[in-house]
């Protein structure tokens, strides 16, 4: 037994170590995902019998103008959200100093992430509210009238993304704070001797050491952008007239409000396919970076 264990340890141990995570994850998450795909092939209101419609939901989705609006908005989210990692890094760099009181300030910087998203959404609604909103007040101070961004089909998504960036940036900040603690002093020293400073130091010496963190930050940012839901729901309910909807919200709306789980699941599946493209790209990047020894 003992020898068997020792002999087989090299593969048994990793298997045993990873087993709980895989088991739980497959049973709860993957199985659910698979079931979602199954549901997407049906017409279903969430409790009654499921009616097989094959690819019907997808066909409908294909000609649903709202779907394209949501898709476009998701792209806007994706692009704008990419600001979160750099800003998060900037804040992390700002507060990564050992000065009395800094720990406390750091904790305060962290607050946006812990606020309930409902509250964040509401507060930013207040920012944008015509007439009383902060934006309006600021514009008024300059004698101008602020646009009612949340009422404007063209601005509304941008306005929501800005609100959503607030916690997202914080998220990235925490990631980078952890990453900044894993930097190699020696490499930084070598960089200093080589005359790298400021931007060069950041770009050539520090960031390469933060690639792993950046990978995580990009992943969570993409996830955040593609899964974006709360802010849309709180700030506009997808409005005005669906122009700020995103796929996740549309999916929710269809499933919960319209009782169309099949259709919702179809949206989710499409969303997931989009993500899969990203995941493949993403993993190949990770592998490549690691092979370089980065």
């Amino acid at each position, binding site marked *: 037994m003992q020898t068997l264990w020792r002999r087989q*340890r090299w593969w048994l*141990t990793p298997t045993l170590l*990873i087993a709980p*995570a*895989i088991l*739980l*994850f497959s049973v*709860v*998450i*993957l*199985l*659910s*995902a698979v079931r*979602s795909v199954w*549901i997407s092939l049906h017409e279903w209101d969430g409790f009654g019998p499921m009616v097989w419609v094959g690819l019907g939901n997808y066909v409908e989705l294909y000609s649903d103008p709202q779907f394209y609006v949501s898709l476009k908005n998701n792209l806007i989210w994706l692009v704008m959200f990419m600001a979160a990692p750099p800003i998060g890094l900037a*804040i992390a*760099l700002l507060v*990564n100093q*050992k*000065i009395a009181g800094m*720990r406390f300030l750091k*904790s305060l*910087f962290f607050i*946006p*992430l*812990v606020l*309930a998203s409902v*509250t964040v959404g*509401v*507060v*930013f609604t207040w*920012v944008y509210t015509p007439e*009383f909103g902060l934006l309006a007040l600021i514009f008024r101070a300059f004698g101008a009238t602020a646009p009612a961004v949340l009422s404007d089909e063209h601005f509304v998504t941008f306005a929501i993304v800005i609100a959503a960036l607030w916690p997202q940036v914080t*998220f990235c900040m*925490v*990631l980078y*704070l*952890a990453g*900044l*603690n*894993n*930097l190699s*002093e020696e490499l*930084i020293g070598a960089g200093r001797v080589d005359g790298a400073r400021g931007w060069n130091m950041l770009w050539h010496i520090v960031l390469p050491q933060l690639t792993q963190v950046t*990978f*995580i930050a990009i*992943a969570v940012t993409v*996830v955040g952008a593609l*899964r974006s839901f709360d802010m849309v729901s709180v700030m506009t309910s997808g409005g005005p007239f669906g122009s700020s909807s995103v796929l*996740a919200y549309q999916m*929710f709306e269809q*499933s*919960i409000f319209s009782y169309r*789980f099949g259709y919702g*699941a179809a949206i*989710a599946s499409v969303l*997931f396919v989009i*993500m899969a493209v990203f*995941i*493949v790209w993403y993993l190949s990047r990770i592998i490549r970076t690691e092979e370089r020894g980065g």
Partner: protein
Amino acid sequence: MYPRPIPETAVWQRRIYLLAVVVVLILWLCPLFAIILTSFRTTEDVMGGNLWGWPTGIGVIDNYTDVFTQTPMARYFLNSLIITIPSVIGVLVMSTLAGYVLSRYRFRGNMLIFALFVGGNFLPHQIMMIPVRDLMVQLDLIDTTAALIIFHVAFQTGFATLFMRNFIAALPDELFQAARAEGASPFQTLVHVAIPLVRPALAALAILIFTFIWNDYFWAVVLTVSDSVKPVTAGLANLRGEWVSAWNLISAGTIVVAVPPVVMFFLMQRHFIAGLTMGAVKG
């Protein structure tokens, strides 16, 4: 450390820097002040559309006491702790184990498993509502904290594994070789070599996971109905009405609910230690 520490001796520089940070912080937290001010306001003030001005009447005490009296907030707090703490521990344990295996062992399917973890992370979770509910019904766990714990552990493990895998992968290979050569079992290597070196990452992960689970409301709604198991976010939501939302109460509630994660962050910073891997290898 990067950026370069301001030397202890440059007292003035340190003070000015701190001041600059405070200024940035104030700008950064601008929206928060609206929340805080609102949590001080009276209902009339809120309804009057006074969102950014100074409160006309002070309703602090009322607001904050109402948060606890209008909903079983204390109970919810307790529930939240009962849900969050085991979940965070569960997530940390599982993801560290999985991340360690995925980063340190090359085997076929490694990347596939990793991809699944990453991919699961990307699922819009609303879509899993029905399947997860059905699963919990089958397990006879519906309306228990266990259901929430199991779900959160499973769901967060995706992200957490990505996180831990990448951090452990960044550690120098030679350290693991040394441990292997010294006869440490893979598990011992994990406990004695990998984990101490990813302490900042674990702390950050703990903070994030704690925050996510603490702030979850959707799954609390899906998987629980009883007040005796609902988390604190339910209390917060309870302050929202069918038609009327008392923003002053909600703001107060938000702040109350936000306190534990912030405290957690403050405490966990202890583990943010720079230069942990210094002096390990030549290279």
